[in-house]
């Protein structure tokens, strides 16, 4: 069947139904794990935030870095997507638990960097070192680390692919890629986020972390870096899913990534990310007047920066919805036409999701207090939880039941 034939056969109504089902699954998961008034109440908010980011990272680690599907098909003869989906989802969930509680809380935090472990923070004593804040602060550090991971891992997937190990075997490819990604993640984390984490304690750990070098931004909070990373990530994902890998694909050689492709993709998406932060903060100035250093709620520069990231988080969610549930509509002959229209649809969709999140409906669905910029309200938690279920379906269940062979 031709690609065009596949597009014609896509059932958009089923796509919509699938999306509704995913929404209901997310609602159920929020009720069980996050809702502050129901079962597990993990949305404190940073603890739940960290767990969701680590879960999404586990999925990306398995699907984009370690290519677990290849390993799975070697190990399991069955082509059944449901079996595959269940097994890989359980593994991803287990990986999340291992990464958060064993690697960070139990190993790195116990034997090396104290702030990754709530127990180590409490054991160190001093002002504010008690279980609630210790868990929140450790979670902040962990979510920063995995944000850096998502940025670098997804960039690598789009910008470099299997380069420079494309001629090597599976094991060398995936493990080399894994370690190099972690190398760059550590650099990004140390430069963008570690200084902030050092200043979450009193007195500040100023021998371990410099004072924020980004004070020119109007804040010493690393929400500045978080906003920048997420805005850049939006362009990485847009170029991958909406633009079909272009324009970076023009720099490939024999269908594989190149050094030039990687460098151009990284810096171009970074520049686009910076421009996005600038434009979004200027738009916020229209509604909320200019932010100022020391301002809180919408007057705070730190809020403005994370809010650019939150808005891009909604855009990213819209991209995934368009790609997976509406067949990346429209699939016109002209690459320019289809990429531009898809981008406009994704941005419009993201704005609709924004309006939904800040509407009274979320008081019902998420137990959210109406209003904007509440310090303990982190829209990315819900957005990433939603995204994680979409990823589970597309990466682990191979799109089942929407996509059938």
């Amino acid at each position: 069947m031709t690609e065009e034939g596949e597009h014609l056969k896509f059932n958009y109504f089923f796509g919509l139904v699938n999306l509704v089902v995913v929404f209901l699954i997310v609602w159920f998961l929020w009720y069980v794990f996050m809702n502050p008034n129901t079962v597990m109440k993990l949305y404190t908010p940073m603890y739940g935030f960290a767990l969701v980011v680590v879960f999404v990272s586990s999925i990306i680690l398995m699907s984009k870095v370690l290519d677990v599907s290849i390993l799975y098909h070697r190990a399991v003869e069955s082509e059944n997507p449901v079996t595959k989906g269940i097994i890989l989802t359980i593994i991803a969930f287990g990986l999340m638990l291992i990464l958060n509680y064993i690697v960070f809380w139990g190993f790195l935090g116990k034997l090396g960097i104290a702030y990754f472990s709530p127990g180590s923070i409490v054991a160190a004593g001093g002002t504010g070192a008690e279980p609630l804040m210790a868990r929140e602060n450790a979670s902040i550090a962990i979510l920063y680390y995995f944000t850096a991971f998502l940025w670098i891992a997804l960039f690598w997937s789009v910008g470099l692919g299997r380069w420079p190990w494309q001629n090597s075997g599976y094991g060398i490819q995936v493990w080399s890629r894994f370690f190099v990604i972690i190398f760059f993640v550590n650099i990004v984390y140390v430069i963008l986020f570690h200084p902030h984490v050092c200043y979450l304690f009193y007195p500040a750990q100023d021998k371990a972390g410099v004072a924020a070098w980004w004070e020119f931004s109007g804040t010493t909070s690393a929400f500045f870096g978080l906003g920048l990373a997420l805005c850049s990530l939006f362009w990485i994902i847009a170029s991958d899913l909406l633009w079909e890998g272009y324009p970076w694909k023009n720099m490939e050689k024999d269908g594989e990534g190149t050094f030039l492709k990687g460098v151009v993709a990284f810096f171009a998406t970074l520049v686009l990310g910076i421009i996005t932060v600038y434009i979004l903060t200027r738009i916020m100035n229209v509604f909320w007047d200019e932010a100022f250093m020391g301002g809180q709620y919408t007057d705070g520069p730190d809020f403005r920066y994370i809010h650019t990231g939150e808005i891009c988080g909604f855009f990213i969610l819209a991209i995934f919805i368009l790609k997976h549930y509406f067949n990346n509509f429209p699939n016109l002959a002209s690459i320019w036409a289809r990429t531009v229209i898809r981008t406009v649809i994704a941005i419009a969709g993201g704005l609709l999701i924004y309006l939904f999140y800040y509407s009274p409906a979320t008081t019902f669905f998420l137990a959210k207090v109406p209003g904007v910029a509440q310090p303990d309200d982190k829209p990315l938690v819900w957005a990433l939880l939603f995204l994680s279920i979409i990823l589970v379906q597309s990466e682990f269940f191979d799109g089942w039941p929407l996509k059938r062979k």
Partner: protein
Amino acid sequence: MKRRTFLKSMAATGVAASMTGAMIPKEAAARKKLDIGEIKGLKIDVLTETSWFNNDVFKKNIMDYGGANTNQYTIPWQWDNAGGYAVLITVTTLEGNERKFMMDFGWNNDWMDYIYEEKSEVASLIEKDAIEFWVLSHWHLDHYWGVESTLKRKQDLTLYAPKTYYPEDMALLKDKAHHTAKNKETGQMDHICKNDYPHKGKLVLCDPKGENKEGIYRVMPGVAIRNFDVPILLRVRGENVLYFNVKDKGIVTVTGCCHPGILSLFSYARKNFKDYKPYGCYGGLHISLFETWDPKFDDIIKGVKSFKIQKLGCNHCTGWIWAEKAAESGVPVVKGTDKYKSYKKYSTVAKTSNVFLTNGDTVTF
């Protein structure tokens, strides 16, 4: 989301899509500024700023029942840790008359009875009808759940409260509510607050539109209430803030918790009040609430200095370490005394630096 905000969002989309800076408006057009009048002077008596006595116990209560976004009415708070926040405000008018009113009602009724009867003149002032009205800053438990201690002395008091209340809040005020919360360890329903004296006086529910759409409520010449509709932790929303315009000195804010942010309060005054001049502030400033730190707390110190506030009186949820660091950085923090040590209980984090105006202290502007 309100329709107006939706339309604004669509407008913003259009602006962004154009990708031209020229289409984004520059400065907002000059607002019509308000003249709120003047007072001669202001005196604040700190009745009680110790909403709770042990931070770790308070935090544990929050943590055990779901964190900062949990509904405060579902947490079986540890009763012996509860105190409360309340302030007696005395305004000297331009004519030289003294007028008194109060902000907030505290938390624990027994503690508030102790404060009113043994550690201040409030009980006798209420009896003499010398307190003109009350302002509830916001519906948080430590500012409101002690309301019975006041209402049993004067049920027909005039009250300004945020419009953004929840059903449990109004039930406590009007319906003789006895609220309980389930203790997950014992399985029992623990008492958390009650009021057997329904409010019968005038109730003014404040919202950001204010009276006559001015954005404020003028309670007397030189004194105004502004409601900031902000979402707050523990499923609460909205805070009333008091503004005073002291003749020849400038604007003073008085807050319960200052959740909107102290600089946002002064920014509002700067944009909206005629002949604005920053002078001082008093109250909880909600910064390093649990004596922890965050880089943005350093931002606030820098911001306070740039706003040129001349007299900063703080306590309660400000955080002792923030106040100390602010004082070290040159912020004009008004120091308190050791009077709080004469009270039957006081905060476990109170420090010898006296950077808080604590129980029994006074500050004048």
